[in-house]
Every structure is written in C-alpha cells, then in structure tokens.
C-alpha cells in the first residue's frame, strides 16, 4: 500500500513537471502568434502573479495579514525608476538594487508590525504603507509627486513588448522556483508551523517574530522584483501603484486562487486581470465587482479555487504528502 502510494505521488510529480514544462514552452512561443495587446496583458499577469505569490509568503504561509503589500511593489518600481533616471549605476545594477530597497522598507515596516498580532498587524501595515504612499505623493522634487515619473531610461533592448514579456517570463519563473524552494525548506516548514500555532512554536524553540520578519522581508523583496518588471513594461510610475486599493485587489486575487496552495495566487491574479479587461476598468464599477467576488468567495469558496480543487483531489484518501519512509539518501 505504501509503496503503491509512493509510486502514485512520483507519477503525479512527473506529470506536474511535464505540465509546467509544456506551459513554459507554449508561453515561450506566444509572441509569435498572439496580438501585441495579448502579450502586453500576459506580461501584466506575470508580474502581478509574482506580486500575489510574494504576498502569499506572508499571508498563506506565514499567517500574517499584510493589508498593504502593494507598497513594496511601488517602492520597487520607484526605486528602479529613480536609479535608472538619476543614478550613475548601470541599468542591470539598478534592477538588482530596486528589490533590495523594497526589502529595506519591508524590514522597517516589518520590525514594527511583527510585534502585533492579527488585525492589529494588518492595520499597522496599512497605516505605515499609506505613510509611504503619502511621501511619494507629496515629495515633488524627488518622486514627481502625483505626476509620477515618465520616460524612464529603460535600456533600449528591453523597450518592446516582447522583450518586456520575455523578461517577465524568465524572472517570474525563476522567482517562483526560488519561492517554492524556500517554502519547502526547513525555513518554510517552520514558517508554516508559526502560522499554525504561535504558542507551540515558541515552546519548540522557534523565535516567531524573528521568523515572521524574515518572511515579511522576503515577501517585500519579491514584490519589489515585480515592481521592476512593471517599470520595464510601462516605463512610467505613479503613486497609484502603492495606493491601498491596489493591495486590496492583491488580497482578493490570493483569496480567489487559494492561499494555502502555491499556485493559487498566480491563478487568482490571472482571473482578476482578465476579468478587469473584459469589464473595462471603470473605477467605481471595478470596486463593486471586486467586492462581489469577495462576498461570493467567502460564502461559497472560502479555501479558494485551487484550494477547492486540491480538496476534491485528495478527498478520496486522507490527506498525505509525498514523504516516503526512509527516503533519505
């Protein structure tokens, strides 16, 4: 029975791997047969999916409630824009440094917030995030204020939609792989343990604040990477990138896809963006739509779409994970 089961999970793993490779292959050739607008849209989906996945490091895996993840996206984007336009750094260094700036801001906000729990944590991230937004919005000389920054000096080779798309595809794939590895490392398992039970974690010797802070900073870093991808595609930034409604949208994406699944946020991001395009993003209506999605989710699919699918797949047998006895080698 147990060997049979092990073989089953092995087969499932290989199947999944093949599926991912096939998807990547299709994604690779997409610019040759889809319209420019579709490729543009896919690029948006890719960096938004990365952003939502990074939010889920804190939310689904870390048990924190970051109500304002978009701040790190915005900071990453602004940092890239400012470094490209105003610093003597070569572009590739600017691209690397921008996520680090986002991680730095996450370190500051996180240090304050991990002292708090639950909703208090959430309110504090929201308050501090809006503070960052206000600074960006008001500081005309440095950030361009509410005008934002336009005509960002993105290197010539990246200034086309296919180039931005391929960059996003590669960066998205690499980042998701790294995040996957981290979440399945001892650090990741301990993070999920922290999510599950603070008290118990403390008594088995885990410093929960420390652990959550590291996860929060990692999430900030990857959100910053998404911000860089945004800059490469759009070559302009505005304060709306780090307004709180952006964060609310991200939360809904994660909830829709399923926050206890790795690919849920990616799925949620794709659905919400496509939905937005079809409905035409008229602001008031858009918030109404998002609100409706949220209500329906809470009522009918509290575990999200992929969470629901996962539940269906594993409902025949009690939930198992693929660790075979004495698989060490």
């Amino acid at each position, binding site marked *: 029975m147990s060997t049979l089961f092990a073989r089953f999970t092995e087969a499932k793993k290989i199947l999944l791997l093949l599926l991912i490779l096939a998807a990547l292959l299709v994604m690779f050739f997409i610019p040759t047969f889809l319209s420019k607008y579709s490729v543009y849209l896919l690029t948006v989906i890719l960096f938004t999916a990365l952003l939502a996945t990074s939010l889920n490091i804190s939310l689904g895996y870390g048990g924190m409630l970051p109500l304002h993840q978009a701040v790190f996206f915005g900071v990453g984007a602004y940092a890239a824009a400012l470094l490209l336009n105003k610093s003597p750094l070569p572009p590739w260094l600017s691209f690397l440094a921008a996520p680090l700036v986002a991680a730095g801001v996450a370190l500051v906000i996180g240090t304050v917030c991990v002292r708090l729990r639950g909703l208090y944590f959430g309110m504090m991230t929201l308050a501090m995030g809006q503070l960052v937004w206000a600074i960006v919005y008001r500081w005309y000389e440095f950030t361009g204020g509410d005008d934002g920054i336009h005509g960002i000096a993105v290197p010539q080779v990246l200034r086309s939609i296919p180039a931005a798309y391929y960059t996003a595809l590669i960066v998205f794939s690499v980042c998701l792989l790294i995040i996957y590895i981290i979440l399945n490392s001892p*650090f990741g398992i301990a993070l999920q343990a922290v999510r599950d039970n603070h008290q118990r974690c403390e008594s*088995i010797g885990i410093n929960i604040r420390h*652990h959550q802070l590291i996860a929060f900073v990692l999430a900030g870093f990857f959100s910053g990477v998404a911000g860089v991808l945004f800059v490469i595609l759009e070559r302009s930034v505005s304060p709306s990138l780090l307004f709180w409604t952006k964060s609310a949208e991200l939360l809904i994406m994660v909830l829709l896809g399923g926050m206890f699944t790795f690919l849920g946020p990616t799925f949620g991001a794709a659905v919400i963006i496509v939905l937005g395009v079809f409905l035409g993003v008229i602001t008031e209506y858009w918030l109404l739509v998002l609100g409706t999605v949220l209500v329906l989710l809470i009522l009918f699919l509290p575990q999200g779409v992929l969470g629901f699918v996962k539940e269906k797949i594993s409902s025949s047998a009690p939930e198992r994970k693929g660790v075979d006895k004495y698989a060490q080698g």
Partner: protein
Amino acid sequence: MLKVKKLVKSFDGFLAVNGAELTVEKGQIVAVIGPNGAGKTTLFNLITGHLVPSEGTIEFKERDIKALSPHKICHMGISRSFQLINIFPKLTVFENVQVSILSRKRKILNMFSPTNKMLVEETYRILEKVGLDDKAQLLSTSLSYGDQKILEMAIALGNEPELLLLDEPTAGMSPEETASTIKLVKELARSEGLTILFTEHDLDVVFGIAEKIMVMQQGKTIAQGLPADIRANKLVQAAYLGEEF
C-alpha cells in the same frame, strides 16, 4: 535540576499561583497534583516562559530562567506538552515532529534544502517510539483525540529535552489509552534518561509512576515529598477529602 521558590503569579490581582515550591532532581519523575484551578497549568506556563512571574525565582541547571522567552528556555533543555491539544493543524504528523527536531538542531533558517529529505530517520525513530509511525503522512488533525495527545508528546520529544513537562498527558483518554500512555511515559523516562514533571488528575496513575509528588491548592504548595509521605499527609488528605489514597 529545577528549583522553584516562592513563586507568585497574579492576574490583575487574582493570585493563580501564590507560593509554589518545587525541586526536581535529574532523572526523577515528579507529579504536580491539585484540584481544578489549583494553578498547575499556570505553574507550567511560568516555568516554560509563557508567563512572567510576579514574584519568586525559577532556576534551571543553576541558571535563573525567570525573564527568558519560551524559545530560549526550550533551547536550554526544557520542552513541554499541553493540556489542551496544541499541534500544527495544517502539517502532517511527520512534519509536526520534524519541525521540532529542525528547531533543536538550529536548522530552521536553512532556506535551500528540501525538507522532505531531512532528518527522516530521526523523525521516524520518535514516531516509532510513540507508535505513530504508520500514521506519519496523515494530516495531524485527522488523528483521533488520543493520538493527537500522543503527538503532543512526540513534538516535545523532538526537542530532546533534559526536562520534559507533561500537562495532563492522559486527559480525556479512555482507560486503555491512559494505561498505554503511562507505560510509554515510564519507558521514555528510562530509555531516554529523561527527567519528567507532569500533572495528572487520576491519582492511581500518579501513585503508579511518580517518584515524588508536589500538591497544590489555590496556588499554594501544601506538600512536597515521596508518595508515601504524601499519602500520609493530613493537609493533603483534607484537600482531597473523600478520595481514596
């Protein structure tokens, strides 16, 4: 090994622990008994750092641990199980124990090794010892109540503690489960060379395995000593009026 002196814990003026005294020597099995609300769990929470004492001292291996946080106390060698089930509900049985071993080995900041290949033998060694090895890959919350209580203990064992605190390890168990759990505790104490401090309401169990007993009433230690002395103690008899000793 553990010395608790004149310990007091006040919750907004209510003295849940009010003059607790306790000495535990290396290798001993010690029981803390007392009626409901006597302050046993609060005493445990004070020892493991989940609560900060209002007054008094707690020494472990000659060191004052009163102001330390729980994770530091754990790394000094004290681990515990909880009265109410306190496990990691979204992790498997295997991972529940594995994470505690990872923490002891200070590997939880490792971000790049796949966990499912780590410490497999060690984790199974503990699971086999407590008899949960065939349920290793189940989600922890799918276990029966009794098995979850055992998992409680297995998580604590993952820390390889020198001093193991068990808060009512058999609470809510059937008589058969209670018997096998007690047997397990006894075996563990012998095979692992553990020092064990436990609370328990079933006096037969207590007198069956404890080498020393401390009795609490309304937060206060009213007696401490060998089982035979406790049995003969007038104060204890008064506190447990009507129960058979």
